[in-house]
């Protein structure tokens, strides 16, 4: 009994620490596009992020949590020694947290997702045995890391191209924006809602038929588009500002869309990244409580809630500064461009969350930004930095793995056996 309490306490502490870190740092990427394009103030961005990160984590985060919890490590090998899984998952959490801390100190761009996956694979392969890793799942995860930025980039490219063709290339872009922006709102709301209902809601005990799911998503998206249209109609053209900047009013119309994009991004981020952080926590809790490694119970809701709450605290304490800094640096992402990148990334992430793939929000967003760039939509992208990101992305995996292995052996010696 005593050991169980120790395990869970440690896991909760590490898990909250991770969630806090995500809220403090990672969320900025999801929200900065709307702050940078001045569609939201920082205060509004924090409120949107708090609500939708939380909803995303609770409503759509379950699959990813499950993949981290039991998809990577072959639980059957551990049936007689459940404490090994507990030590390993604790080590993974601590390793990922430590690596993120080291990286932040040194200014390296790293990914929470990659740290967690690297750490989990590391402790399992070395601490338990090479065969303890479901290499198939790991292969799929790594594939999704390649596929997610590509997918997001492709969607963003098409979206921005359509914005140019449908709105920007015409003589009356304001009138055309009023007509087409609600369509984009519908598309964004429909996709995110549909994937969430189809893939996520069973974790909160809601079961709907496929047909109903489509109907609900459709109805919800129509409502969003209608509400959005009302706001769009209320935006008055400003001929004086337009004389200086032709797309002034158009961008303001896209600003309304940007708010919906921000909600979708926060939701998507919550659904994937929060789940990454609390996957190991969930594993520790279910194993410690039942003593069984293969416990098939679903992830307890309170664990998802805890992760969501950690993110919100991180946002409130530290995240606002990061959002402000990032927002001021990405002024090239005007609402029309930021929406294309944001919706593309959010869609990709929510789909990945639905299939349980732990992917990196930031990398997906970077892919989406490159997609807008390919549509000749961004003035200047520094390819050197893009290259550095890819390198740090690869380095993070062995680094997380190495730290996890060290922590695993320490825990195995120090912590009480089950």
């Amino acid at each position: 009994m005593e050991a169980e309490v120790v395990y869970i306490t440690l896991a909760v502490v590490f898990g909250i620490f991770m969630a806090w870190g995500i809220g403090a740092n990672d969320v900025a990427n999801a929200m900065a596009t709307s702050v940078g394009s001045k569609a939201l103030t920082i205060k509004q961005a924090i409120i949107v992020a708090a609500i939708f990160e939380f909803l995303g984590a609770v409503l759509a985060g379950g699959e990813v949590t499950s993949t981290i919890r039991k998809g990577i490590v072959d639980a059957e090998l551990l049936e007689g020694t459940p404490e090994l899984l507990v030590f390993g998952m604790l080590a993974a959490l601590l390793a990922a947290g430590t690596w993120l801390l080291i990286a932040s100190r040194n200014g390296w761009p790293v990914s929470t997702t990659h740290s967690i996956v690297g750490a989990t694979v590391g402790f399992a392969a070395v601490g338990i045995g090479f065969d303890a890793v479901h290499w198939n799942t790991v292969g799929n995860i790594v594939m999704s890391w390649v596929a997610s930025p590509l997918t997001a980039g492709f969607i963003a490219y098409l979206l921005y191209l359509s914005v140019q063709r449908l709105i920007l290339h015409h003589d009356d872009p304001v009138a055309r924006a009023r007509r087409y922006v609600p369509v984009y709102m519908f598309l964004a709301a429909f996709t995110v809602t549909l994937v969430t209902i189809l893939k996520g809601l069973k974790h909160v005990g809601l079961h709907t038929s496929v047909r109903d799911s489509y109907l609900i998503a459709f109805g919800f998206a129509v409502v969003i588009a209608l509400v959005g249209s009302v706001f769009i109609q209320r935006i008055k053209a400003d001929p004086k500002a337009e004389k200086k900047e032709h797309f002034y009013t158009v961008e303001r119309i896209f600003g309304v869309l940007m708010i919906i994009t921000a909600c979708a991004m926060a939701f998507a981020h919550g659904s994937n990244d929060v789940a990454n952080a609390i996957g190991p926590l969930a594993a520790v809790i279910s194993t410690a409580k039942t003593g069984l490694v293969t416990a098939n119970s679903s992830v307890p809701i309170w664990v998802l809630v805890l992760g969501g709450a950690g993110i919100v605290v991180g946002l409130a304490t530290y995240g606002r500064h990061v959002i402000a800094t990032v927002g001021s640096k990405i002024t090239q992402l005007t609402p029309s461009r930021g929406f294309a990148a944001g919706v593309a990334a959010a869609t990709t992430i929510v789909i990945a969350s639905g299939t349980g793939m732990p992917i990196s929000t930031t990398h997906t967003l970077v892919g989406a930004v490159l997609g807008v760039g390919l549509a000749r939509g961004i003035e200047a992208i520094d390819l050197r930095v893009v290259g550095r990101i890819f390198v740090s992305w690869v380095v993070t995996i062995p680094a997380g793995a190495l730290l996890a292995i060290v922590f695993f052996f320490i825990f195995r010696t120090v912590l009480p056996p089950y």
Partner: protein
Amino acid sequence: MANMLANIFGTSPVFPLEKHIGIAFSCAKQLRGFFAAAVEGDWDKAAICRAEIERYEHEADDLKKEIRLNLPKSLFMPVPREDLLELLLVQDKIANRTKDVSGIVMGRKMQIPSQIAEQFLEFVDRNVDAAKQARKSVRELDELFTAGFRGAEVALVEGLIEELDKIETETDDMQAALRGAVFEIESSLNPVDAVFLYKVIELTGEIADMAERVGRRLELLLSH
């Protein structure tokens, strides 16, 4: 944590380029006051204008260097980096020519002969107009980038450049007429003064030439 998202954006050259042409125009605009004072022989006032010209020219130079430093080869942009650098270079030449021509006039305290004074001032005015039209055209850069260099915005910029060409042709005609007028009174002038007067007319005319080249450079961007 180093923020990946913020760092993948290079410094956009668009706003700085628009700012640069603004400075170059402000520089050229001083020529109106400068020559008006010179014609009246008010060298104190001319000196004030000349100081302004030098200040703007320096400012343009500094900004030019800064833009170049922020355009590394690793940037991924919708238009070739070389074309933007060329555009910057001709923009800068508007300020350079302004400084050159005002330098000669100031240094020699050159008297513009009263017979051609009015015609000369009109010629200066039109050259400054050309620089202004160049500024108007370059200020469309951000819209061009947003629209991906296609569509209605391109037609708009092409119209602006057409207007710029028209102004430049006018300055050419005025320049020819002005040279003719100087030739008429040449014999009454000190030979060295006459030589420099031709030189000043030529350099002033180059302001419109450079403005026109700004238009050509913009056109090159449009054709990508």
